[in-house]
């Protein structure tokens, strides 16, 4: 109720913009929507997590790598369709695996992926 009163007052007094204020020496506030993709990459043969897998996307330059726990996380702008490619780029370090593509549509804001890569 208090929040509602504040919003009404802010709007009437032409200060509704102040609800999205920015501090003197700060950035603008971030209220945009985006989508997060995160998950774990494992070996299909052993079930072990794989470190150093490159996760690239259909957005130029937007990529990530799996960490020592096989985990990755990447935020991408809103789109109808996302293509994620999982690629072993460190030769035989951490094993050697076949590249894998996946296409995802209708993303609800957050997607968790469990990816299994086939050893070469």
């Amino acid at each position, binding site marked *: 109720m208090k*929040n509602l009163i504040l919003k009404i007052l802010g709007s009437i007094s*032409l200060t509704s913009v102040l609800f999205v204020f920015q501090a003197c020496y700060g950035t*603008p506030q971030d209220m945009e929507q985006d989508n997060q993709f995160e998950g774990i990459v494992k070996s299909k043969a052993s079930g072990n997590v794989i470190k150093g897998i490159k996760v690239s996307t259909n957005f130029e330059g*937007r990529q990530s790598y799996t960490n020592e726990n096989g985990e990755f996380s990447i*935020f991408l702008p809103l789109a109808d369709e996302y293509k994620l490619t999982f690629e072993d780029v460190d030769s035989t370090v951490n094993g050697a695996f076949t590249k894998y593509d996946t296409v995802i549509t209708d993303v609800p804001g957050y997607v968790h992926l469990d990816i299994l890569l086939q050893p070469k």
Partner: protein
Amino acid sequence: MTGRINRSLFRLFRKLETSAHPLNYLFWECTTRCNLSCLHCGSDCSKESGIPDMPLPDFLRATDTIQRNGLITVVLTGGEPLLRRDLEECGRQIRKRGMRWGIVSNGYLYNKERHNALLSAGMGALTISLDGLENSHNWLRNTAGSFERAAQAIALAASSARLNFDVVTCVNPHNIGELEEMYYFLLSVKVKAWRLFTIAPIGRAELNPELLLTDGKFSQLMDFIASKRELKQMDVKFSCESYTGPYETRVRDGYFFCRAGINIGSILADGSISACPNIDHSFVQGNIYRDNFFEVWQHGFTDFRDRQWARRGKCAGCNEFKDCLGNGLHLWHGDKKEVLVCRKGIAER
């Protein structure tokens, strides 16, 4: 008549907002290291800081105490945040906790690779400083080539539809004559928002009065901003740094409201809990290594939320105090006997 009603409603809004004091905006002074040595630095940062970067887990332990009431934007500042090698991991962990994040940067290290890495880690807001055309910027930033690097960073950031991005300029006697040319330069690289500051006599600028604007130059700045706002080609505005007297609502979207300690908090490099990082250290409310951050936020900050103490010096008998409340809190330093800057009545002076 409408203006008086709006102002009265705004005062009521400000009173209620102060009473509720929801934390929406949190500065994290994640490093005091800096790759530049700007003449006007309010933080007095340097290449070799004596204060180590705060470890990410320490910051997260403090923010985990927050009972959120709406979205919080965490602004990583410094120093130069791009010097932190774990910046992307910091951002990912902040997003993981349901908060948003952005950085304030001098742009010197902001290249395409870092741009993509930061966006991939969920960065949603960015501010880059551009303090004049080439010579003026390099002079103030005290580094040759810094204009070129900042300009490249600005073009890159402006190309992202996702980023809430703006350019900030510290206006001073050296660059005030260049604002018109800067405006068209920023338009040419598709910048949508430009925020202009003045330099307060604090930090290194305290010893450098040639950086400060006279009342006449300040009026010139206000007129410039007001005229560019009418064009509606770019969101040009004066920062929230101070009350502007007769220019209120012409140079910003709303009335002056210093939200330090009301909506804005900070965790400084040494763990101090305060509001905007340029506020005098005597206003520090606690320390995350000793106190529960959110308890301090909820129950401390009394001088931030009740500004009646600022009725002193030239503010004591001022008939505009109810709108200004003693100006921006960063303008009270040292013994706090007098506000450092007052722009009341500048049009008449």
